[in-house]
């Protein structure tokens, strides 16, 4: 079972230089391991907000949340569901 929707996967792949196109993104990899630096994290935040038409609350803009794909989705997934409903 996928742990996040394809839209999230698409946004992640646009910013993960080291993610292989034919392999799943490791949920617990760090963003650094996936090839992102601080600028790409900024672009990722903005891309996620555009894609899901919501605003990531400032308290979630932390290194703990933006540690890796799984922690990001865990934090924003419930907010995206609310925004979509």
């Amino acid at each position, binding site marked *: 079972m996928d742990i996040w929707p394809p839209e999230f996967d698409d946004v992640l792949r646009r910013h993960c230089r080291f993610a292989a196109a034919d392999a799943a993104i490791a949920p617990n990899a760090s963003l650094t391991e996936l090839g992102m630096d601080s600028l790409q994290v900024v672009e990722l*935040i*903005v891309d996620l907000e*555009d894609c899901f038409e919501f605003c990531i609350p400032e308290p979630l*803009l932390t290194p703990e949340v933006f540690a890796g794909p799984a922690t990001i989705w865990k934090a924003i997934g419930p907010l995206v569901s609310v925004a979509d409903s």
Partner: protein
Amino acid sequence: MSSMQRVSDVASRLSELSRQNRYDPYAAFDWPDSLPAEMYWLSPELMTCHGTSVWDDLSEAARITLSHHEAVSFFSLNVHLIRELIGAVVERIYTTRYPGLSEFFHDFIAEENVHAWFFATFCRRYGGKVYSARLVPGQASATQAACLRDLAVFGRILIAEELCDHFNVVMAADQQLPAICRQINRMHHQDEARHIAFGRQVVRALTEEALAEEGAEKVHDVGGYLARYVATCIHSFYNREMYSDAGIVKPGAMRRQLLATPGRAAVHRQMMGRTVDFFSRIGVFDATQVQW
């Protein structure tokens, strides 16, 4: 004379100018209780949708309303850029790498503190808030050599200052805007002229140092990063929350539509052309590396 000695001499002269031109920010501005709702607060040609089909589809009243939010967003962006650059300079004052620059750094920090205050005052008074920065704090890389890290840091500062200065120059002279908007932009431009003069000197010196100590390949890596920073900075003007506040129903979709409009890339090139030419002349990055 070494490059860093030249920077130090320039910084001393700029410090003198700074102290001659010091003003009391708390007395310099006559803040009206409110700004005219029927006036633009940001010059139309600087707005993110100018020259696009979105602009054509907006009524004049809607354009003016959006300009209010774009002004607050632009000044908020300045606040966050200043937070970053004050932090970077504070980390370097009284360090062994910059022994001749501490006096200038004091003046720089003092002036930037004032700038952040008047930008934030505008935002809070007329927009009710300072828009938040869309970044995760505490992600600076400490793995590079000091000269490369400093080139990245002072390069970022210079890019941000020159981008904002482009806006300041246009708005300081724009009679369509309320007087307080023109005044803020004029005063910021006057101080920034000194900071930009210093920035170009220090970035040139750091490039020479990095080329000598670390080689062209590593300098080009920093250049690639700075070229991406140019795009990130420009894209941050397309603030999703700002569009939402202006009543745009799908602000994220509009942001993406505007950034994909071919004519906007030409506007971005024009905004940053002189800055990118400077980085190209000193061999750090060129316009072909920027995703306009």
